[in-house]
């Protein structure tokens, strides 16, 4: 039985909890350690859940939590479209 937090990268709830307990109490550091949020959805399904886990587990004030930086494009775009020339 596995409880998935990040389905894109198969990251499990106990892995996130262990990483928080090991001192990874900010989202960026947790991401780099567990690889959560680095998959195809880019954190849409897991960043808020993980922020909640940090908040609950170590009582961190909400204002100290910031998500990973979402860079464009936020939905997959075929490379062909990006290779196109501008109209002008």
């Amino acid at each position, binding site marked *: *039985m596995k409880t998935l937090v990040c389905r894109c*990268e198969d990251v499990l709830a106990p892995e996130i909890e262990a990483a928080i307990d090991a001192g990874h109490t900010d989202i960026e550091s947790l991401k780099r350690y567990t690889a959560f949020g680095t998959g*195809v959805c880019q954190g849409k399904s897991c960043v808020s859940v993980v922020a*909640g886990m940090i908040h609950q587990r170590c009582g961190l004030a909400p204002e100290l939590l*910031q998500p990973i930086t979402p860079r464009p494009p936020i939905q997959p775009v*075929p490379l062909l479209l990006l290779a*196109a020339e*501008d109209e*002008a």
Partner: protein
Amino acid sequence: MHEGEALTAKKGEPLMVTLLAHGIDTASRSIKYHRPRGAFCMNGSCGQCWMRIDDLPNRPACLTPAVEGRSIGRQNAFPSADVDLFRAADLVFGGGFDHHRLATTPLSPLNAIMQGTARQLAGLGELSEQTPGPAPRVVEQEERLVIVGSGPAGLAAALEARALSPLVLEARESIGGQLRSGLFSDVPELAGLKDQALRTLGDRLWCRAAAVGLYRDERGPQLLVKKREESGERLVVIRPQQVILATGGYEQSLLFGDNDLPGHYGVRALAELMLVHGVAPGSRLVIHDGGAELGPRLYQTLKQRGLDCQLLDRSTKILRAEGRSRVKGLELEQGGQVRKLDCDVIASSLPTAPAYELAQQAGASLAFKPGRGFVVVADSKGHTEVPWLRVAGELAGADSALAAAASGKSAALGLGETA
């Protein structure tokens, strides 16, 4: 055609709907443990139903329409997504594997084997052998006001600012967002929004147009849009003077054992499947009420239709889902008692996590709200720290469709006068 088998579909319905209508709920295999995965959000955000479509890898089956002669297939599985031998990884590493320690000793033979194996197992799809056609030109256009999202917030904002003839962008096939399911037809303020918007805004409503980036260059704000037209997809660069983001939120999953099995849906996805497309992904339905207003509404409607549906309240904890390849039941705990529940669909009805990406790219600040996610910092009228950017709806913290519509209206107040 799905893996050599011909499937009949309603023209234009999402391919995932076609698959579910034929009883196929495994859309892919997961990257590490090769666990079966199916649609969860039906909204292009969860990344679980990416398939090979017309020989191109990694296309979301929940947003790609069924077209006659289209071929679809599942990726990341050997020999097939139904029977994937690499699932052995899931069974061998029952408690998960630690990628920091597993066979990572430098220069050890085990490390070399691990690298070779991991390369075989991992990765998403394979590139097509086809030579792509000519790239469609990028079109650029200027706009006074662009509204991203056509749920209750976006539509209410667009109607309020109609004097400016705003351009409304919607990623899906039709407008309405969470109103699409018809579950709010008893709320007078929401019931007529879609029709009124269609009448008032006409071709200023762009469907199949996903905003994928929002940033500034030396000429001002720039909104990058991926637009699907009859001839295919193209990019459009919009140069707006003002932007209202009403991008809504992403469905979230409850945490329980084997919560990734096909058969676990977000409540909006279940409403979309059953009420918009008329396809039931199972016959014994369970909705877990995690606080989103849609859960109880959908439950009432399904009950009225005589379907086998149960609503679990928040005091009931789901311990795990039963089943190896899809949900076949649940193990629940309530008041210290553990019991089993027979079902084939479980829907999480949690508040959505606001879709803050575009706002953050534009320079707005975010604040974490426990139980919700990251909302955009804005005043009561949705004004952010960025002068040309306003936010509305779930993004601004609205927790109901009615509140979303009200915030959309107030975000657009005064825009017509300043233009």
